[in-house]
């Protein structure tokens, strides 16, 4: 596994964390959205990540089939899942989307949990940048051997 591969690998992780941030931002932005194209209030979305071998090379397929774990494995977004939780009912008779009893179905988005998710994604992204700068300095040092 060369240093360039390590950089590619780290980049996949950083892209995945960017998606997590986007989804957390989307959830926060829509936490009082009562109308969607599918009807009903907005439903909270969640990112599902999965490990994928870097570039489907023969050697990675072979070592995967033989149960060896020495091939680089990147990450990608498998799916962005909609939560199936029931919406929260809030009493607000003046709201245009209130039902006959005066209750409005509001998205079940926990702002605190979303903020924690956002911070987790930001920290993981930061970890990716640290890996990249370490890779860079390793490459610099390796090139210095020849001088």
């Amino acid at each position, binding site marked *: 596994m060369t240093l*360039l591969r390590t950089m590619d690998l780290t*980049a996949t992780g*950083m892209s995945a964390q960017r998606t997590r941030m986007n989804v957390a931002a989307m959830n926060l932005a829509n936490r009082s959205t009562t109308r969607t194209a599918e009807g009903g209030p907005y439903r909270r979305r969640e990112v599902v990540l999965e490990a994928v071998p870097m570039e489907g090379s023969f050697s990675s397929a*072979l070592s995967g089939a*033989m149960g060896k774990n020495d091939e680089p494995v990147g990450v990608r977004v498998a799916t962005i899942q909609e939560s199936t939780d029931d919406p929260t009912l809030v009493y607000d008779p003046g709201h245009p989307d209130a039902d006959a009893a005066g209750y409005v179905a509001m998205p079940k988005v926990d702002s605190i949990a979303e903020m924690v998710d956002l911070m987790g994604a930001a920290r993981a*992204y930061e970890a990716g940048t640290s890996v990249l700068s370490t890779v860079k300095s390793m*490459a610099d040092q390796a*090139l210095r051997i*020849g*001088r």
Partner: protein
Amino acid sequence: MSIAGVTDIRPTAPAAGRTEVGSSAKSGDFAAQFEAVLTDLGNTAQSADATSEGLVTGEVDIHEAMVAMEKADLALRVVGTVRTKVIDAYQQLLQASGG
């Protein structure tokens, strides 16, 4: 059980590849290999170019563009180091024949 047979094959495969590279280098193919490396460098630089273009149009994330540029930079420096080494070796050979 059948897997045990396959495991034995694996370490010999890269070794065979390595001898091939070595023998082709011995037969004076270094220039061709260096040319291949240069073509590769060109590709890396081109992809860096494309990603920085994508960064401006908003299609590519900052980190992807930075990684592509960093890779191009690293590849360029590696090629530069190899070139310096090759020219050094050539000059030493010239000195050996001259004096």
